């Protein structure tokens, strides 16, 4: 690009209207890829949302518990054992019920809901906005719980911001008082969430045994300040042997996502969609560039005759590809962000645009346009100036 004239830019922008039209196609292709990736990630993210909220460095779980939703538990003795281990600051038991926890309100049918319980004195959730903390005092009262705002509409509770509390319902046949809400999200296996104190939990789920709190679903381990999580994880696992499984929080998250990606075709479905969106984007971008080249063939032929080398045209087209990619990506990103926002509200799935994901689609868009650029430029390179006149 030593000519000093930004030809790529000028070619693209001299006809504003045409540019807008061309970009439209790329914008939609970008939106398609964002939407496919977005839902893919949201579906998997949703299954570990609650785990990401847990204030724990390590997680203790029954080795047979193949997913968070499988109700395979372990004895409380493991908690005590772990608490005295080197590097461990505190171990907090977490109790979970789903199938036996059936929530009913008024005329609606009883529907399973995930109930999470713990010792209210323990800080189990990160709770960054302090929503759970502010309701802890009231959760000490008997038969109380707070409900996930993103729970399925079908339960029959109005959980919007204007809703009034407390709301009365029935949990597993006993009355329950919903005194407030928090936010988490639905997933494949759970249509809603409740949080309550472990004392209340023991009352509702007596079937768990003589002392319902003696069997635990997850053990949340907090480490001491300077402890290395991988080291402590290994040594704790060694001391447990095969009785219990100890994982770092990230390992636990990966295991859960791994389970759902193996058990459902979600990954395949959305990857197919993404690839098809990519291919369409390549075709659209190619059309734009090829059209531009053929329209200006005379001028390019002149440049060639003037002595401009192939590398110049190469650079020109690649430059145009990159401009197109960015022109299409930015509005595509903004529109997708808007779409995600609307989608989240409508589906209860938490669709998030994180930097890595944005970067991924940006790279895909750039690749898409550059590939089409490379395909389009062949015509130009192959053109023989003399034959064009």
């Amino acid at each position: 690009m030593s000519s000093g004239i930004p030809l790529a830019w000028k070619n693209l922008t001299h006809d504003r209207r045409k540019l807008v039209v061309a970009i439209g196609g790329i914008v939609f292709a970008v939106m398609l890829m964002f939407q496919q990736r977005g839902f893919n990630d949201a579906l998997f993210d949703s299954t570990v949302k609650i785990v990401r909220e847990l204030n724990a460095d390590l997680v203790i779980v029954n080795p047979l518990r193949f997913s968070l939703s499988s109700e395979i538990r372990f004895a409380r003795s493991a908690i005590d054992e772990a608490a005295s281990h080197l590097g461990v600051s505190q171990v907090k038991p977490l109790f979970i019920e789903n199938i036996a926890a059936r929530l009913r309100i008024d005329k609606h049918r009883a529907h399973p809901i995930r109930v999470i319980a713990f010792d209210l004195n323990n800080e189990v959730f990160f709770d960054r906005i302090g929503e759970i903390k502010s309701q802890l005092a009231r959760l000490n009262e008997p038969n109380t719980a707070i409900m996930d705002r993103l729970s399925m509409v079908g339960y029959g509770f109005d959980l919007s911001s204007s809703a009034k509390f407390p709301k009365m319902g029935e949990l597993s046949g006993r009355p329950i008082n919903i005194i407030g809400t928090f936010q988490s999200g639905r997933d494949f296996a759970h249509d809603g969430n409740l949080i309550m104190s472990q004392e209340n939990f023991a009352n509702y789920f007596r079937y768990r045994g003589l002392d319902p709190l003696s069997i635990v679903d997850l053990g949340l381990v907090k480490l001491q300040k300077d402890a290395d999580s991988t080291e402590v994880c290994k040594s704790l696992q060694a001391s447990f042997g095969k009785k219990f499984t100890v994982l770092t929080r990230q390992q636990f998250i990966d295991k859960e996502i791994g389970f759902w990606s193996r058990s459902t075709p979600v990954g395949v479905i959305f990857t197919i969609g993404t690839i098809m969106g990519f291919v369409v984007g390549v075709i659209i971008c190619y059309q734009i560039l090829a059209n531009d080249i053929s329209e200006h063939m005379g001028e390019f032929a002149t440049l060639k005759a003037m002595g401009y080398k192939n590398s110049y045209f190469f650079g020109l087209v690649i430059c145009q590809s990159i401009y197109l990619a960015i022109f299409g990506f930015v509005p595509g990103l903004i529109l997708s962000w808007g779409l995600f926002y609307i989608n989240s509200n409508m589906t209860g799935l938490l669709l998030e645009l994180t930097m890595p994901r944005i970067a991924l689609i940006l790279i895909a868009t750039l690749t898409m346009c550059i590939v089409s650029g490379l395909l389009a430029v062949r015509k130009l390179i192959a053109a023989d100036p003399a034959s064009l006149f």
Partner: protein
Amino acid sequence: MRTDLALLNILSNPSKTVLSIAGIGIAIALVFMQLGFRGAVEETATNIYDKLDFDILIRSPNYLHFVDASQIDLGFAEEVAGLEGVESVKSLQVSIVNWRNPLGEVKAILLLGVDPKNSPFSDENVNRVLDQLSGDNSLLMDRLSNPEFGPINKKQFDSSDIGREFEVGSQNMKIVGLYSLGAGLSANGSAIVSIDSFLRLVPTSSSQQLTFGLVKLKSPGNSAAFADSIRPRFERSENDRSIEVVCRDEVIRLELQRWIGETPVGFIFNLGALIALLVGAAIIYMVLGNDVANRLNEYATLRAMGYSNLYLASVVLKQALYLAMFAFAPALIASFFLYGLTEYFAQISMKMNTKRVFWVLLATLFMCSISGAFALKKLWKAETADLF
């Protein structure tokens, strides 16, 4: 007009046209894929019901979905069986039980309990093997179950697994035969046992209760009316019912409502299809817009020659239509191919149906008309004199 201008316009630059058609075709194929995925979920939601033979179903008023159905008392099934117009009522027991695979892992499997002499299934391949259910610990295994349950060849249960024993519930059961069913969305596999075995494997079940009563009528034609007529017997009030009486269509509708309507599934795939249509529309608009812009002089000349605006508009719209139609057929064929690939690699059931083809065709026509109409705006800008 003897010269089909629209067609000639398209054919004048074959390579460009082929490319445009490819782009539109992929967009259409994408729409088919999204709807195919939605259809796969719909089918797995209702698959088992499709294989059961009934005109009317009686089940608990606490029924949520197939594997979370609650129980009803045997007495109600007997009462319905004695009603005028009822040919038979067959029992089906359903539960999720634990299955221990050879690695010692515990998995959840769908267990169906039936009376082998009174099969509720309509599918011959299931009924054919039902009489193998003799003896206390015999079990029939679903070939379409996930490999996590431990078939010998690690991929699918087949005849080499016959005779093998597995711990089901907390009892040892032996596979005596295979069938093909598909467990749907709630379980990764299924197995069939006799009612007696079921009662032993599921401790919470009882011989005085059943999950579903499958009712066959003497004259199945008016099952909806029949259901309406007997429903009041089992209702003390609108919310106080002892059993739920549903006819077949309603059963399917409610199940789809629960899996597609009440979960994000329907929304996700419908949105995907919509965006794919928008992509297709954008491509058509781009292609037509370019074409009109390139031929503006020619159109202006035609105008000057006296051809009406209507004629010019019809040419552009016809072009849009041709593009879409040329793209539709290959897109449909490609979709069949992609459906097959997806079925093979992802083990999901992707099936095309006429209704879907019809709707996508309609949507395609609509999309290209709209795009064509927008492209026309460029044409009107062609003030004859300005162009020369």
